[in-house]
């Protein structure tokens, strides 16, 4: 359970540090006019609300994957574990996900700098690369099945299917938000500020899932 605990400790320490900053040396029982308002507090204006929600969600997802990895580490120690050979296709998929992340960052920078012409191609490119990753993962499953490496064969296989599946589901969740943003850009119904915000937040989510994948992939390769 160490992996779960370490992830948790990092999340809680961040929160604790912030809370300390908020509450240290205050005298709650003293009434006075306060300059600080919640809307202009240390977390920034209300436009940051969605960012806070996203970061909270990322903490939940971190906890989720860290706990699977904890289970992975514990299960690996038991006698029946046989390391599996990962399909070579995963390297291609990883490359595609890295490119997707880069493309999203490029789109995001365009949105922030107000280069509107970059949005459509950027979003489509990102979508195509990400869809390519998901399809690639599915093909990798097919290859494993074809070579007779079934989910029931060994716990390492089971974890492989579970981890890649769970990661793909999170990608698909991101694709849903991406699809909404892209539709609005395509139809031209998007308000500039709102769409920029959506793209910025999506890019953070994409980078996060890339990081999760790199950790998972590294772990799968090394065990």
């Amino acid at each position, binding site marked *: *359970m160490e992996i*779960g*605990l370490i992830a*948790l400790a990092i*999340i*809680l320490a961040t*929160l*604790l540090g912030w*809370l300390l900053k*908020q*509450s240290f040396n*205050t*005298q*709650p*029982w*003293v*009434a*006075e*006019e*306060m300059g*600080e*308002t*919640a*809307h202009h*507090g240390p*977390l920034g204006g*209300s436009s*940051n*609300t969605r960012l*806070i*929600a996203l970061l*909270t*969600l990322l*903490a*939940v997802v971190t*906890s*989720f994957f860290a*706990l*699977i990895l*904890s*289970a992975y580490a*514990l*299960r690996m120690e*038991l*006698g*029946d574990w046989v390391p599996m050979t990962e399909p070579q296709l995963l390297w291609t998929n990883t490359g595609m996900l890295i490119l997707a992340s880069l493309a999203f960052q490029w789109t995001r920078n365009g949105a922030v700098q107000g280069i509107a012409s970059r949005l459509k191609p950027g979003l489509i490119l990102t979508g195509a690369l990400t869809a390519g990753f998901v399809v690639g993962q599915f093909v990798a499953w097919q290859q494993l099945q074809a070579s007779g490496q079934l*989910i*029931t064969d060994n*716990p390492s296989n*089971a974890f492989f299917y*579970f981890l890649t599946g*769970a990661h793909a589901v999170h990608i698909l969740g991101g694709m849903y938000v991406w699809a909404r943003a892209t539709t609005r850009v395509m139809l031209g119904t998007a308000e500039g500020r*709102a769409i920029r915000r959506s793209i910025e937040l999506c890019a953070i989510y994409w980078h996060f899932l890339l990081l999760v994948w790199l950790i998972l992939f590294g772990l799968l390769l090394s065990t």
Partner: protein
Amino acid sequence: MSYVAIADRDHEQEHHDPQTFITKYIWSQDHKVIAVQYGLTAIFVGLIALGLSAMMRLQLGFPDQFSFINPENYYQFITMHGMIMVIYLLTALFLGGFGNYLIPLQCGARDMVFPYLNMLSYWVYLLSVIILLISFFVPGGSTGAGWTLYPPQAIMQGTPGTDWGILLMLASLAVFIVAFTMGGLNYVTTVLQARCKGMTLMRMPLSVWGIFIATILGLLAFPALLVSAIMMLFDKTLMTSFFMPAISSMGADPGYTGGSPILFQHLFWFFGHPEVYIVALPAFGIVSDLLSTHARKNIFGYRMMVWAIIAIGGLSFIVWAHHMYVSGMNPYFGFFFATTTLIIAVPTAIKVYNWVLTLWEGNIHLRVPMLFAIGFIFTFIHGGLTGLFLGNVTIDLPLSDTYFVVAHFHMVMGVSPVLVVFGAIYHWWPKITGRMYNETLGKWHFWMTFLGTYAIYLPMHYLGFAGVPRRYFAMGNTEFLPDSAQDLNAAITMSALFVAATQILFFINMIWSLLKGPKSDPNPWNATSLEWQTPDHPPKHGNWGHELPECHRWAYDYSVPGYEDDFIPQNVPPDKAPAGRDHGEDH
């Protein structure tokens, strides 16, 4: 899901207010309506779970007298009773119910920051409840694996409900976690981002603090339950061996290889122990506010109370294996977890002392909510002390499988939070409905519930010491148990049925109040926190009329010297009332 902030609404915004019955009460995005929906659904399933416990008590008190209770049913009753009470009643009621109602009102916000997501959270929760209830009616019935769902028995033939019941249970839990995550994101973001001007974190009422930290615990701990539920679903449906060891079942080999049931226990309790505090922290917060309001005194040691909540929250993640002393773990682990378990008693004891010191020399009004709050202190100290026994490995080993444990966890996380739930409902009822209830009936409800639950659980400690094993359908010919143990069990059953029946008083009172109760004053308890200062009573959609409130002080300015009233609401500016306590005064 786009949300237009209604913080600075103009007159056009009024048109977006819900108009029809459906948008106002069914598909509502108003946090107050969603809170009531959560509350009613949770209480409804809670009553089912109460009924199940009555059935169990009938069997235990009067074995083999009732043909409709057989061993399979009995285990199904245990499982569903435990799971419903812990997750679908208490978690949903404290966070979905009180969290939804109190966070925006006490923080001075118009609503949750993502109202649509909030609505979705309730409906997904309802879906999880429906899936759970369907499991009563599928072939084989609901699962009888015990609320901890330990493999391998949870999915092996021979346990009730292994065909469909366990699948529906796991699916329902997964759906519940999705619902909770949607709600939780809202609660955290609202507390962080939507507080009104002047409402610093250290001016928030402790109710909000308790709910806030409990939500963070839930967001980080529920994934452990989700992971274990998914992995067990795979073990059940795809025949993987995450948890399932190589095992033969009824002479046949089901095909599992070398999985680890202990791994499940780690994951389950990594969720399960924080879950105790997911229920307890909101109760701690709410009880602090009730005691302070009805004792007309500021809460003793506010900052200490906040930090105790945070410390308990953090520590709750490193004590999980004290639920597994009897699982055959390395003794050094037991030593570690016993130590952390005893450490968590320190901030908890600080809270208890501070509650008692808040009452000290207070102007105590023994109204119904106050009775329940003081009742909570008794039951919580009681359950907490037995927790110190069980936190030690050497004492836990002989007691772990006895009724001592049943008595302990019912006192500490059954009776105590439920007393707070009742206290909170009686306290905020006038704000929610705009009507008063019958005080006398409420007091009868309290005394019968409080004394009745003591009559149930106090004797159970003795049964535990005598060695009466828990989880058994019938004792059979157990030589070491005196006949009086059975007499005690019969008495406990009588008390349990009495307490269950007493709850009718509560429902009669509340239904009467809704229909014919007198209109309540907007602030009947002369309380300081913002929800009592709304321009409309009960508050309308948007909570604050045209202007958001401004917060100028903490929520505990009771009996401040030099002020005409014995309370100063949080939105009264310092130039109109004393500026709180003296700066240098030590609290």
